[in-house]
Each structure stands twice: as structure tokens, then as C-alpha cells.
């Protein structure tokens, strides 16, 4: 599929504290670096405020592990890990 990061999360392309959002543990804060992914989901993700530079707090995973709840721009958004995988972030603090 076009645009998605490769499965191997530890490629040389990512710097040390750069990860995809699906790998971030709850109670961590990150900043969005880039949104990849298919046209329609990328568009929706950007529209909902996950633009480069935005601070995102990872709140919790759903009881069954997926989707995940995030807090950004003053509201709460849930994404499946599959969507979160298309968002490149860096951990803050």
C-alpha cells in the first residue's frame, strides 16, 4: 500500500525518538511530525487536527486493545492502531 511506513519499525529512516503513533504507550505526550497514508484517511486525520507540530496526549487503549483514545486541541479522538500507524510523531518531555 502506498504511503504507509514499512513494517520494520526500526529502520534507519527514523531518528531515535521518532516513532509511529500506534507504538506510543498511554500517558505519553508526543508531537506530530508527518501524516502519511491513503488519501482519504490522511485527509480526515489532518482535518481533525493531527497536523504537523500538534501536541497529542495518548490517553488509553480500549479494553480490547483497539482503538486508542487521544487528546489533542482540546478534545478527544479515537483512532484504530492501523490509522495511528500512518502518523509519525516524536515524544516530548
Amino acid at each position, binding site marked *: 500500500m502506498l504511503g504507509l511506513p514499512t513494517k520494520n519499525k526500526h529502520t534507519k529512516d527514523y531518528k531515535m525518538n521518532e516513532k509511529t503513533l500506534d507504538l506510543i504507550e498511554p500517558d505519553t505526550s508526543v508531537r506530530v511530525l508527518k501524516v502519511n497514508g491513503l*488519501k482519504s484517511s490522511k485527509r480526515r486525520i489532518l*482535518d481533525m487536527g493531527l497536523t504537523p507540530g500538534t501536541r497529542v496526549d495518548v*490517553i*488509553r487503549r*480500549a479494553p480490547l486493545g483497539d*482503538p486508542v483514545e487521544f487528546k489533542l486541541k482540546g478534545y*478527544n*479522538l*479515537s483512532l*484504530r492502531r492501523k490509522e495511528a500507524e500512518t502518523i509519525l510523531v516524536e515524544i516530548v518531555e
Partner: protein
Amino acid sequence: MTEKITVALTGNPNVGKTSVFNAITGSKQHVGNWPGVTVERKMGKRMHNGVEMQIVDLPGTYSLTAYSLDEIIARDFIIEEKPDIVVQVIDATNLERNLYLTTQLMELGVKLVIALNMTDLVLAKGDSIDIVTMQEFLEVPVVSTIGSKGDGIEDLMDVIKKEHHKTRINETVFTYDKKIEDKAEEIGQILDNEPGFSQYPTRWFSMKLLEGDENIIKKAKESDSYPRIENIIIDADAENLESEIADQRYRTIKTMLGQVCDINSVHLSGTDMVDRVLTNKLLGIPIFLSLMWAAFEITFTFATPFMNLIEIFFGWLAQTTVNAISIPWLASLLGDGIIAGVGAVLIFLPNILLLFLMISLMEDSGYMARAAFIMDKVMSKFGLHGKSFIPLVMGFGCNVPAIMATRTIEDSRNRLVTILVAPFISCGARLPVYVLLAGTFFGKDAGLVIFALYALGILVAVLSATLLRNTVLKGEDTPFIMELPSYKIPTLKGSLIHMWERGKIYLKKAGGIILIGVVAVWLLASIPAPGNSATFASEEVYGTAGSLIGVIGHILQPLVEPLGFDWKIAVALIFGVVAKEIVVGSMGVLYGVGENEESLSAILAAGAMTPLAGLGLMVFTLLYVPCFACIAVIKRETGSWKWAMFQLVYSTSLAWIFAFVIYQVGSRTGLLA
């Protein structure tokens, strides 16, 4: 000549747009459909100081892209119908994201008025918003409203009227960096020379092209100038442009908010605290299951006294009518037919209304989003979506509004799958059949059997979804990108209105289709079979083998014999297609006991049917073709008869196979004797 203004109402989902719409229009509203599509359209009227305002409620959207039907409808309406004023309802507790839509509306060059809703919640949190500065920044009037209480609506109407007379609007309140503005300018110049695009605001069209909006690009390709436009876009590094533009919109919003708002987001909000419990890893699911169970318990417990009342009333009504009328066939038509038939439907109204009330409360409070959040993992295993959960749950009351509720599912494939499997959820109409048969043949285990039927329905629904998603409706998984709105205490008024909207649909079904169906049943049962010289609608003919029904039944008998059914059951099932509630009534007619259920039960137990066949009949009723109203709604929501017919064939085949297996295997292995 009264001045007339068309007002389009927009806004994000969960901002209280519906309350504002209701507060503006009161009871003067009606529901229809957007032309050519199956999305609901609400319109209303309001007189204000001699001006007649027509309010059109646009679907709630986060943005105006081309990726969802709701958004396309909203923006097409604004561009093509050109409403005089657009009112955007904004959630004051969630300004940053809400204003994103504002940027797009302003680029469209509309006359905008902002209704800043839920300002009471802002104050309650100890925050404040400087509306005056906000108005200066946006160059758009901002009115504070509390839709649920009706506060600020008069002011809103005043402002709309005033704004209507304004002549100039500023399309460039939101600007981008030089690179983007220059490119937009270049494209704009080409567009201005193209008469074909004169209906679109130039700036908006240019920005959409730079953003990569598929809908707009398709339109632009129709012109000869497209290659030149394409060059400009390529030159501008389009891949990242989309991100850039979204980012810059949000930056501008943030700058403005810094001057306008005083937000104390440091402390944990009430919603966050509640969610710690409700979506908790350990407690989340048990709480969810308990709430679902409680909703159903409350529904059935509180509904029962009302159901008894209705039953008594209709029994009395039928009796009185029959006694009062001397013409035998008319008495029969009214008593056995119409009154009994309509009564059979209305008796479930308390049940259904209460269930819808429970669901409305869950939706209005914000809990439903949590339900979708919790259930998504399970739903996606079957190729469904967390958002499919709510419509499916509604199916327990009535499949018809459940199928209509699938409108909230954005992806058309997911929506279609949900629509096609929803009828397997056992609705209220099937309950009389279960109660009769389980009661007759399973005695004290009746409750367990009925529960098993409900479970079977759910099982067949999810497995069918998996099947469909892997065969006929293969495709990409839709993204699950869902807002979890803050919890709100639902107003009783609001939830009751929601409940009533859905109840009305159920009632129309009773009033319309079932009435026709019941009369049809009665006719077929009354008309003597060819060659039978007995009188029309007489005791000898009505519901016996000597009527038309009898003839039809005997023709169908070979089809249902392997299932353990006789011709009477076949006929009852056919009438069940009109509305499943009728199955029991038809059986009563056919077995010659009229409305007396106890007698029907006795006759069946005495040997007219075996327990095994009884079980098969319940399963058949659960699975086979949904009622007329359902088929009609499937056709409406999917836009064609193709899928409605597919559902009909699929479900009836499935029903036949299940009943066949039950009866054949059961007989050979001696189960249930």
C-alpha cells in the same frame, strides 16, 4: 410581500446543532431526503419580525472535503443552492477544532453567522471567551446561544436578518503563506477566464485544487486549461501541500484563540474522570454489558403494564364492534381483520418507545461513542465498524429505524453490510411468535429458548457480515476516526423528541403497510376457493382450506413439508412478510381459533405441530425475509431494489436451510420428541 431568507445550518457533529434547529423552528419542521441520495434532510420555518426564514439543516461535518457523502451534500448545497445565510453552530468548549470548518465556510465566500453554543458549559468550567474580539478577528457576527434552553435564539434571528442586508464579505480573513497564496493567485487567473467555473468561488476552487480535492480536480479536468493548472500544482509540491494548508489553517486559529479565550485546561475535566471508569481496561466491558442489559430490562419491565392495557383495549374494541355490526362480513373484516391486526402492532409500541428512549439517552449523553469505542475491536473482526454497533442495537426494537440509523456510517461499503445484516437482529415484531411457540412447547424453559433465538440472530448477523466482506463486498477497511464528545446531561425534552421521531416511523408502519396487509390477509381468507359455493367471509370459508388462502397454502405445502410445517404455517409465513406480528394472528385464523391465544396454544400442543417444528418455525421467523417496511427501507437506503432483493433471497434461503436442518436432524436423532 414578505421577505424570505434561506438559512443553512451547519456545524460539527455533537455541537447541539439539533437543539438549535429545534429551538428555531419549534414544531414547524419536516423531514425529507436530499435529492438523489438517501441522506435525511430536515427543513423548518420561522417567522421573525415579518421575515420568513426557511431553515435547512445540513448534515453535521468536520470539514468540507470530498470524502464523505455528508460533506459533499453540505458543500454542494452551499455552492449550488446559494442560501442567503449560513449559520455555523460551534461548540464553545471545543473552539479550536470547530473553527476549522469555519475557515472552509469563509473560503466559500458565504454570509456567515456563528452561533456560539453551550456557552453555559464554558462558564461552568471557569473559562471565558471574548466574543467581541472574536467577531473582530473573523469579521463575522458571533451570537452566544444555549440551544437546549432556547437562550440566544431571538438574538440569533435578529443577527441573521441584519446580516442578510450586508453587501460585502471578506473571503480572505484566513490567509496562507506567500508560496501558497501566489500559486492560488496563478490558478485563480486561469479560472477567471473559464466561464464553466463561474459558479464556484475562485479562491475556494483554487485552494481545493492545491489541496488535492478529488471532486474538484475531476471538475477541473473538464476544461482545456487543466494541463496548465496541473503544472502549477505539481510545481507547488502537492504531496505536502495538503498538510501545509491544514496546518496553516490551524495555526491561524490558534493565534486568534490566544487573544480570544481564557481556558483552564489544566484540571481534569469531568468527562475525563468519568471515562477513567467507563472505558477502563477492566471495568469498561462489564459496565457496558450491564448498561445494555439494564436498558433492555427497563424497557420490558416498564412496558408490560402498558402492553396489557393496550391488549385489553383492543380486545374490548374488537368485541364491541363485532357486536354492534349486523353484517357478518363487515363485522369480520373489522373485528378479525383491522382491529386485531392494528392492535397486534400497537401492542409493541410501549416497548419500542422505551427502547428508543434508552438509546436516545445514551446518544445524547455521549455514551454511545464510548460503546462504539469499546465494541470496535469485536465489530472489525467481522468486517464491521464500531459505528455499526448502535444501529444494530436499535434493531432489537425495530429493524426499520435501525437501518435508517446506518446513515452515521460514512463508508458506503460498511454501511451496506450493516444494512444487509441488520434484519437478522431479532426485532419486537418477532416476539409474539416466540412467546406463543416457546410458551407452548418449552414451558418453563421458554425464556432460555427466546434468549437463544436472540443470540442466534446476532450470530447470523456477524457471520453474514464476515461472509459479505470476504465475497460480494470485499474492500478496504474504513478508517475508524471518531470523536469522543464530552459527556453531557441529556435533556429529557431532547431525548423524548429523538425517541418520538423514531417511534413515528414505527407507527407509520402500523398505520400504513400493516393495515393494507391485514385487509389483504382477510380478503384472501374470505374469498371462497374456486369451485366452493359457500358465501364470502362466512364461517365455513374464513381461514379454511376452502378459501383462497387455503389454495395458496396447499400449493406451497411441498416446499415447507421438509421443515415440518403444514399449509397453514406456509400461509401464516407469507403474511408475516407484511409484518411479522401478523404471523400469530394468521395462525389463529387458520387454526380456527381467532384471537384466542390460549386456544391456539392448546391446539398446537395437542398435536397440530410438533415441538421440533415449533422450534424450526421460530428460527424461520427469526431469519427469513424482513417485513415489507424493512424491504422498502433497505431499498430507500441503498438506492436500488438489487440489494433489497438480495437480502430477501439470502435471508429466506438461510431460514429454510436452518429450519430444514433442525427438523430433519432433530427427527432422526429423536430430539424434542
